[in-house]
């Protein structure tokens, strides 16, 4: 059904995608740092893109590449992986190990052209401003990239 509808109005869909494209971004947040940074951003009156949706994890080291791929496969347009600053990681080595993993993942995703859709960021629990900066930058990046090519149709509610 989706393919046929795409075929019937290809131009219109594409136009719609360009103008009204709203990315879905999943952010994995360490419950000791970036989750609080997002909270702090909210309580200090900052705003960031409404399309960023947070999943709480105990440590950025718990985020498996499988989860990132799964989010992309399920139709997320971008995935953020965020944790503590390396020298202040709540679990000592979590951020360092996660960074290596995400670098490797980005390398592999380059082959299929999806590497720009993941973003690895580190911040402290009080860095509200930084949370806003990195999410806004990533939102803009995804908006420019357009919808996830794995996804056949734009969001419907």
């Amino acid at each position, binding site marked *: 059904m989706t393919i046929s509808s795409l075929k019937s109005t290809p131009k219109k869909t594409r136009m719609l995608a360009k103008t009204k494209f709203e990315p879905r971004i999943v952010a994995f947040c360490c419950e000791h740092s970036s989750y609080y940074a997002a909270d702090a951003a909210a309580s200090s009156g900052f705003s960031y893109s409404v399309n960023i949706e947070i999943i*709480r*994890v105990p440590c950025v080291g718990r985020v498996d590449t499988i989860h990132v791929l799964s989010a992309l496969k399920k139709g997320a347009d971008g995935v953020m992986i965020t944790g503590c600053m390396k020298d202040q990681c709540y679990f000592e080595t979590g951020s360092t190990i996660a960074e290596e993993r995400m670098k490797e993942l980005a390398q592999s995703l380059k082959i299929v052209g999806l590497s720009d859709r993941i973003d690895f960021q580190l911040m402290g629990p009080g860095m509200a401003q930084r949370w806003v900066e990195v999410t806004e930058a990533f939102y803009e990046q995804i908006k420019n990239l357009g919808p996830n090519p794995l996804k056949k149709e734009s969001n419907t509610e």
Partner: protein
Amino acid sequence: MSCVKKIRIGVFTCDCVLISKHFFDLQAFENYAKTLPNVVYVERLGYSCSEKSQQLLKKRIKDQHLNRVILTACSPKHYESLFQRCLEEAGLNPYLLELVNIREQVIWPHRNEGHKILRKAKHLLRAAVYRAAELEPLSSSIVTVPPVVLVIGAGISGIQAAQALSDQNIRVHLVERAPAIGGKAAQLGIVYPNESCGVCVPPRLTEMSRECLVKRGFKYDSNIHIHTLTEITQLGGRIGNFHATLHTKPRGVITDKCIMCGLCIEKCPISILDNYNTGLSTRKAIYLPYPQAVPRAPVIDFDVCNRCGKCAEVCPVDAIDIEEQPRDTEMSFGTIIVATGFDIFEPEGMYGFGKNPNVITNFTLTRMLDPLGPTDGQVLRLSDKKPPERIGFIQCVGSRDPKHYTHCSRICCMITLKMALAIKQQKPETQIDVFFKDIRLLGKDYEKYYLACQELGVSFHRGEVTNVTSTRKRGLEIQFETLAEKHETYNVDLLSLAAALIPATGSQDLAEMLNLESDESGFFCECHKKLVPIDTTSEGVFITGCCNGPRDIAECSYLSAAAASHAAIPILEGILKENPVKAVVDEALCIGCANCFDVCPYNAITMKGGVSTINELYCKGCGICVVECPAKAIQLQNFRDSQLEAQLMGLLLNTEMAKQ
């Protein structure tokens, strides 16, 4: 259990003014909640953190036979534990609660986004509903805490912490490797800021006079058990269940029998340099470490004793036992306070130290200034035992120096000023030159010392000492470069080096046994530099005194009081609930690759019989190992793959790919 029982999710929305109705259509949100799978009950709670709402929540859990609860309210950092307790009281496992952070993640940051707020709230709720179906009850194991605290190091910090614990009627084992308690403070003679003896304390409420901290009441304090000459050879376990092996070297003197007559010391034929006086005097092989030493008995230095037995012959009370053997004692503790203190950096080869006997550390000079010390409070040149006419002080020796230690030793400036002042008061004609990079006086009254020194004519020179050479008659010539790159030369008779404070020897072994972190200088790291400066990353282990970094006695005192009060919390509570969010291994799936073993930051994983085993005492629940496992044999409770996957599914359900 959860798979058999039908899942019944109750969704409760919080109606706090900060959250809801003014910003989005709560009714629509609730209606949407009703359409989600497994949701059997939806209700608006009012202020969910209020007592009334919680009673209602508990009632509903029972009435509606709910076995999962979702609460859409504020950030979990505020009330998660409150709501978990609420579930527990309603007879439901606290880990069957899922919070949706509507306030901080939806309302506050997106106030002006109109209908998009509702959309995001729906996504997050759906993710929570999907995740809730996968949640499992987790039980925290309960540990009974033995009401005993181990204090490692009986310096001024350790003694103060032990005393503070004893005052709360908690049993303390105070372990010290030296033959007497008191640590470095007992060696200091006079200390700033009130020119009293290092271990002198003002009277407590019930006491009449000032007294020596070392001697104070320990004899009558049945809560404190002092283990001198004792080192910790083995230390393991975790909060509520630490077990240690204490290795006690023989003292050779039975402290209970000794009457301190001193005959044994007189008769001993062996004489060696006394470390307590930094080699300024000699002592016998059987000796009293220092005049106020506790325990009140001499000790035999078995490294130099020739076992002639003369001491045993003269002892009138048969208190000497040359044949005493070392012994090992095993004990369990609830919490641990580490107060291992510091050592003085040996500036070997710097500024002529070690070559010219008139170059000494400030610690040696302190011993000379002690009225009861080896020189009766007189400052003397070590080469000819004459009072020096000119004394030089070089600051920051070994500290703030990229070649040795980068940290600031913090107390050397005050030590130098204190000694300069004492020397000037004793002999005003002595010329004193202080060569410094910065003078750092961090205490309340410390500036007075600086002003007093300047008034009495102490010369301060800011810049860098480039070289120190020996001149005739063991004098010293100091080449000095000022900030304006001017080269100057000074002659002094005695040179005191403000040597850095460094971690005590053996700190690294202790750090390994207790899983403590150390900074680049080797000092133990605190859990959080600002908010919990006495807790460490190892739960139940607290640090106080200079093992955490250089500080003066006043700072050590308040840190010790803080450490004692924190260490007392688990003891006074008596039981501990373990956080059940830990990694678990499915042994049937484990292929024994040991990848998890390599990444665990807490050494919680061991390989036993070809499969990995997780020591739940050490596991802190980071989940790093879970990702590393190629066989997916490890899962982190409460953050299982299936739970995260379900959450993602719920979040992204309306995108086309997720539907397929």
